[in-house]
């Protein structure tokens, strides 16, 4: 007897080792957005990396498409407790952009069209663990899923994988992004259940 919720029984959860604690498997696609979906044209889309001293390097859509592409297949985990296994994407590893700016900063702010921001330790963005993606499941990324391009950081909760991404700003000190300033965790590791402040 736990003393809580008498008569409650486990129903249909699996013990799949791919499932982080507190998550369950989704048939749909996880969504967590603060507002409506912005419409962004590829013709005017740019991606900007700003180094810690303010220097900028910018890519147009065509320049981004010309970079070496990868096709990661990964599991994703939304803080609203949905997980989805084996999602397939196409895009450019973040390392390819970071290679063009001076390093030394420890943190990054990922910035989106529409004003959304999320802070991520630079280690989590580099080392082949994060991508700027433009295809999902073999098709161009739909606007509601972050198209034309979104961040993909599968090893962190999915709110870190900012939709409608427009750039990365490197920072020497950590600052909080949109959800992080509203109570969500600064790092967001699903395996440690880093959902909210204090986790």
């Amino acid at each position, binding site marked *: 007897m*736990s003393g809580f919720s008498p*008569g*409650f029984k486990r129903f249909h959860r699996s013990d799949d080792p791919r499932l982080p604690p507190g998550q369950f498997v989704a048939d*749909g696609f996880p969504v967590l957005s603060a*507002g*409506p979906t912005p419409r962004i044209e590829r013709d005017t889309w740019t991606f900007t990396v700003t180094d810690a001293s303010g220097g900028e390097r910018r890519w147009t859509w065509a320049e981004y498409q010309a970079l070496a592409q990868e096709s990661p297949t990964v599991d994703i985990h939304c803080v609203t407790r949905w997980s989805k296994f084996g999602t397939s994407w196409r895009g450019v590893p973040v390392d390819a952009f970071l290679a063009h700016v001076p390093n030394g900063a420890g943190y990054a702010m990922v910035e989106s069209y529409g004003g959304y921001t999320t802070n991520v330790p630079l280690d989590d963005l580099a080392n082949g663990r994060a991508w700027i993606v433009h295809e999902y499941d073999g098709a161009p990324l739909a606007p509601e899923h972050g198209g034309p391009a979104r961040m993909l950081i599968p090893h962190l909760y999915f709110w870190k994988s900012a939709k409608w991404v427009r750039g990365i700003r490197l920072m020497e000190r950590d600052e909080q992004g949109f959800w992080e300033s509203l109570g969500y965790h600064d790092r967001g590791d699903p395996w440690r259940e880093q959902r909210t402040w204090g986790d």
Partner: protein
Amino acid sequence: MGGLTVPGAWLRARLTTRTAETATARTLVFSVPDWPGHLAGQHVDVRLTADDGYQAVRSYSLSAPAGEGVAISVQPVPDGEVSPYLAQELPVGADVQLRGPLGGWFVWRPESPDPVLLVAGGSGVAPLMAMLRARERSGAATPFRLVYSLREPGQRWFRDDLDRYAGRDGGADVHYVYTRVSPDGVVRPAGRLAAADLSAPGWLPQDRPLCFVCGPTGFVEHAANLLVGLGHDAGRIRTERFG
């Protein structure tokens, strides 16, 4: 009180009352001794524990404002693990664990002067009801309009309070969108939420209302797109998706 406190610990919450909203949906009121208070629009995580130690956690919006208890309103989903248990089985007087309040963006504060346009799809009315009740409780005269999309009349939650707010001078404007079956005497033909449902004098884009949209993902996406299409500032549309 309330607002952006660190949610931290799991709190013991005792079910004190369970009341019917519809044939299947229930509002559950808990007594939580260490509850820190909350803002209208915030939600809690509810944790259930089975005898074998298995735990399940789900999020539920608070449907009453601070000062009116810790209340959630649950639509049991077929084959759901948690919602049927909460709606039907958890005995009154028994305990669950709660963590919260959570979410600091989808909130309405009584001191906010802007007109408010609430757009609910089904059970998404829960956090919006907390906002309507917080307005009522504070005595604020802020113009409020609720556009409530539901399948048929039998699915209507919070009937008494909504009828009361809609019926009194200075109350709230309440507009129902029946998607399958309209009640007798309602002129609007049953059908999906449309731009016309969201256009009312006082809550037009030039009135700069704060818009709160809540419900299933597909509904929220549709409603938010309609609002943007009408010319509402995307920065003034706040959304909460239930799954």
